[in-house]
């Protein structure tokens, strides 16, 4: 996703001379083409994320469209008050980009696991929160946040994420993409869980369960209509995210469902428990350990389907 991001940003910067890229001393073998092509619009602030965000706000208040770039929690939690006061309160045109969210930096441990960022950025006023589901969405999302005025958070995977979409996808901020249709079950996935959701749907289909898969790339503003439609038309809704089940996509969907009379089925949030992991291992190992592999998700969904069936 990071190469889709930088490729798109380079294209955008060719025609929009207000675009700035500000990095916190990360991005080796990623950001160099931008730095070489647009040296006057590139800035490495060093290992200083609070300053990175304040400087970005200052640049944005002088008319720039500023992308801040770092990994995991560094461009978000490390400087959350700068995001709140300097960026959000001024409604400044700053796009915060984080690479390697969720458990992507698996073996580097808890410090590098970005598992509360959706919740924390989502709750701040004036923010748009986007977590694209594959490299095609990542490119489209980069374009979309560049064009959208105000603070945006772009939550990316690291690299090598499988393609879910063909080369063209209709991507609009705040509009879920229906990847597969079905009315037994609705899987709502955000970010890096999208590919897993599709594979889960394929496996369930072999068992006769027809699943709708929504790519909920925009966690805020949430596509409430798509959620309500799923609530009306399917027997169960399951959210999937590489993030704590507290405060992220699952919570956002739960908020919608709790306030409607239209939900008729079951609901479950799948994600990470709000706890620090005591396990050490790579990305896929950790995802599996928390039930976020294809098998793990299918295992969690089956009892839900049984209950939904018996309730009918």
């Amino acid at each position: 996703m990071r190469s889709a991001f930088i490729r798109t940003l380079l294209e955008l910067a060719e025609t929009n001379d207000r675009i700035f890229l500000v990095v916190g001393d990360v991005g080796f073998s990623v950001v160099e083409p931008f730095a070489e092509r647009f040296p006057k619009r590139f800035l490495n602030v060093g290992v200083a994320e609070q300053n990175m965000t304040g400087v970005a706000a200052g640049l944005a208040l002088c008319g720039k469209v500023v992308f801040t770039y770092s990994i995991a929690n560094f461009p978000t939690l490390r400087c959350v008050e700068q995001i709140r006061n300097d960026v959000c309160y001024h409604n400044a045109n700053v796009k915060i980009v984080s690479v390697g969210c969720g458990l992507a930096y698996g073996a580097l441990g808890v410090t590098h696991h970005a598992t509360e960022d959706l919740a924390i950025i989502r709750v701040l006023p004036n923010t748009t929160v986007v977590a694209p589901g594959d490299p095609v969405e990542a490119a489209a999302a980069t374009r979309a946040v560049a064009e959208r005025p105000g603070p945006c958070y772009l939550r990316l995977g690291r690299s090598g994420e499988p393609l879910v979409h063909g080369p063209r996808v209709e991507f609009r901020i705040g509009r879920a993409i229906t990847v597969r249709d079905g009315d037994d079950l609705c899987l709502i996935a955000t970010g890096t869980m999208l590919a897993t959701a599709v594979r889960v749907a394929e496996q369930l289909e072999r068992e006769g369960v027809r699943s709708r898969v929504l790519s909920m790339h925009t966690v805020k503003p949430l596509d409430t209509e798509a959620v309500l439609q799923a609530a009306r038309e399917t027997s169960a809704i399951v959210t999937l995210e590489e993030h704590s089940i507290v405060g992220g996509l699952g919570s956002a969907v739960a908020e919608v469902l709790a306030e409607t009379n239209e939900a008729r089925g079951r609901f479950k949030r799948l994600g990470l428990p709000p706890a620090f992991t005591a396990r050490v291992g790579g990305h896929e190992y950790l995802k599996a350990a928390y039930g976020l592999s294809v098998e793990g998700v299918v295992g969690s969904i089956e009892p839900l389907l049984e209950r939904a069936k018996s309730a009918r």
Partner: protein
Amino acid sequence: MTEPLKRMAREPAKTLAKRLRCHVVTMTHRARSSHVGTALSIVDMLAMLYGGVLRVDPREPEWPDRDRFLLSKGHGAAAAYAALAEAGFFPVSDLDGVDASIGSLGHGLAIACGMALAGQRDGRPSRVYVMLSDGECDEGSTWEAALFAPHHHLDNLVAMVDYNKIQSLGRVEDILDLEPLAEKWKSFGWGVREIDGHRIPAIAAALGSVPFEPTRPSCIIAHTVKGKGVSFMEDNLLWHYRPPDDTELEKALAELEAAE
């Protein structure tokens, strides 16, 4: 582009400072708000900035080439609002509506760096002035920005440290000593000048000679007195918190009116 300043430049900064002090005590009294002392310590510098140094135009507040002023020590906001009103950005009568101080410390210098960098890279002539408190020199984020500005040769940036030697719970030297403060800024790569932050000619001379060193940002360490101008508020921690009551307001205004 000096035309918009003419209206205020006719008035000596000293007279303006006196009026700003009266506004500050009246506002904090009316709003029952705190931080009157911290607002009074920056008044003379604000009078100089808004009385002739800043290239700003109240008729065109978004003018792209304008100078920027950031009050990083947001708790001194009463003084800044008074200065904006006197400069013609909004009517003095609207000061009635100002009832709160704003700001989290350690944010202003970074934003100022971003603005100065934008000006530098766009080749604009504008300067960015930012007023810091001594207390916010405790914040690590202030020093992140202090490292950044000289590295990027932001000679269009002026940081003014209001060194009134009192922070929230007591004297700076007792809580977290900043000394040697001037040497710290110098060693970070800034051009530094120390002045008496209440002596108008000294303020004018310092602001008139930035950048102090070519290609470097400038830091003015202004030695000030918290609560300056009101005898019973001067150098007294109490006035970080208390608004003046009716009698105190009367006494303060009488003192300020009587002052030279």
